[in-house]
C-alpha cells in the first residue's frame, strides 16, 4: 500500500513537472505567538513548520508539532505542553485552506500581494473554520507567505485556571512566516 501511494505521488509529481511547477513547500517555516499580558510576557516560537501550497488549485496547508514551541522559560514550556495544549494527546496543530482570491496573486511576478485564506484551523483537537488575511511575497522568484491573526483560547477549549487568569491573555496573537521551494 505505501508503495502504491509512492508511485501515485511520483506519477503526479512527473505530470505536474511536465506542465509547469505548481506545488511549493517548506519544512522550515516559523510560527510564533504572544499570549502574555502586562503582568507577564509569554511568547514562543517554532522553527520547523511544514507548509505546502498548490498554485493551480489555491490549496494551502500548514502543520506544526506542539512540542517544538520554544519558550524563554522552562516552566512555561512545560505548562504549555502539559496543562494547556495537552501535547501528549494532541501532538499537532494544522490548517487546511484555500486562497479566496487566487486570481489576484501572480506567483510568477515579483511583488507583494494581500490575500485572504479560508479554511479549517485545528488546535488542541478542536476544528474551527477561520478566515485569515495574509501576505504573499514574491522576491526574485522566491515565494513567501506571512500572516498575523488572533485566536480565542476559549474557541479551542483551552482552559486557563483562575490563579493565572490575569497573566495569560484570553486572545493569542499568532504570526506565521514561510519561505517556499518548488516541490
Amino acid at each position, binding site marked *: 500500500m*505505501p508503495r502504491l501511494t*509512492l508511485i501515485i*505521488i511520483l506519477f503526479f509529481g512527473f505530470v505536474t513537472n511536465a506542465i509547469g511547477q505548481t506545488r511549493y513547500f517548506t*519544512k*522550515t517555516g*516559523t510560527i510564533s505567538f504572544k499570549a502574555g499580558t502586562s503582568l507577564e510576557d509569554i511568547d514562543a516560537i517554532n*522553527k*520547523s513548520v*511544514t507548509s505546502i501550497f498548490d498554485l493551480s488549485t489555491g490549496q494551502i496547508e500548514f*502543520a*506544526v*508539532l506542539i*512540542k*517544538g514551541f*520554544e*519558550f*524563554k*522559560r*522552562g*516552566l512555561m*514550556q512545560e505548562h504549555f505542553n502539559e496543562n494547556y495544549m495537552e501535547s501528549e494527546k494532541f*501532538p*499537532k496543530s494544522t490548517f487546511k485552506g484555500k486562497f479566496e482570491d487566487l486570481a489576484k496573486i501572480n506567483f510568477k511576478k515579483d511583488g507583494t500581494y494581500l490575500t485572504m485564506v479560508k479554511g479549517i484551523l485545528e488546535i488542541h483537537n478542536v476544528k474551527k473554520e477561520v478566515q485569515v488575511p495574509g501576505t504573499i511575497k514574491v522576491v526574485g522568484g522566491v515565494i513567501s507567505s506571512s500572516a498575523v491573526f488572533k485566536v480565542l483560547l476559549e474557541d479551542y477549549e483551552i482552559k486557563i485556571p483562575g490563579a493565572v487568569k490575569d497573566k495569560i491573555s484570553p486572545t493569542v496573537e499568532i504570526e506565521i512566516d514561510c*519561505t517556499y521551494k518548488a516541490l
Partner: protein
Amino acid sequence: MKRIFIFLAVVVLAGGLYGIYLFNKKPADTREETADFEISATDLVKAFSSDEETATKKYVDKILMVTGQIKEINITSSTLFLESADPLANVTCSFYGDENAKLKKLQSGEIVHVKGKCTGKLMDVVMNNCSLNNINQ
C-alpha cells in the same frame, strides 16, 4: 520568639527566591544532557512510519543522537535534513542558532551525528535544540 520570627523570615525569603529562580529558569540545554537513544536517521524514520504511536511514546521528548547523511543544509533557519531510506521522509534537525558557524563548514553527503530533542513527525521526523557531535563523544 524573636528567633522564630527570624527563622520564618529566612524560610519565606528562601522560598520566594527559589520561586523566582524556578520561574526564570530556561528550558534545559540539550547540549548538556546525555542522549537517551542512539539511532540512525533511517531507523528513526522507519520507526515512525511503521508505528507512529509506539515511536512517539518511545522517542518524543527524549534526547536522541541521530546519525545520518546530510541531504540538505539550510543556514537561514539553522537546519539540517538527514537522509533516510524513504525518499519522502527525512529527519529535520533544527539547531541552536549559535551552532551556525559549525553548520557552515558542512557539505551535503557528509555523515554527521546530531544530538537533539525529538518533537514528533510531520512529513519528516523533527528534532529540536540540535547540536553537532563527534562520533566518540
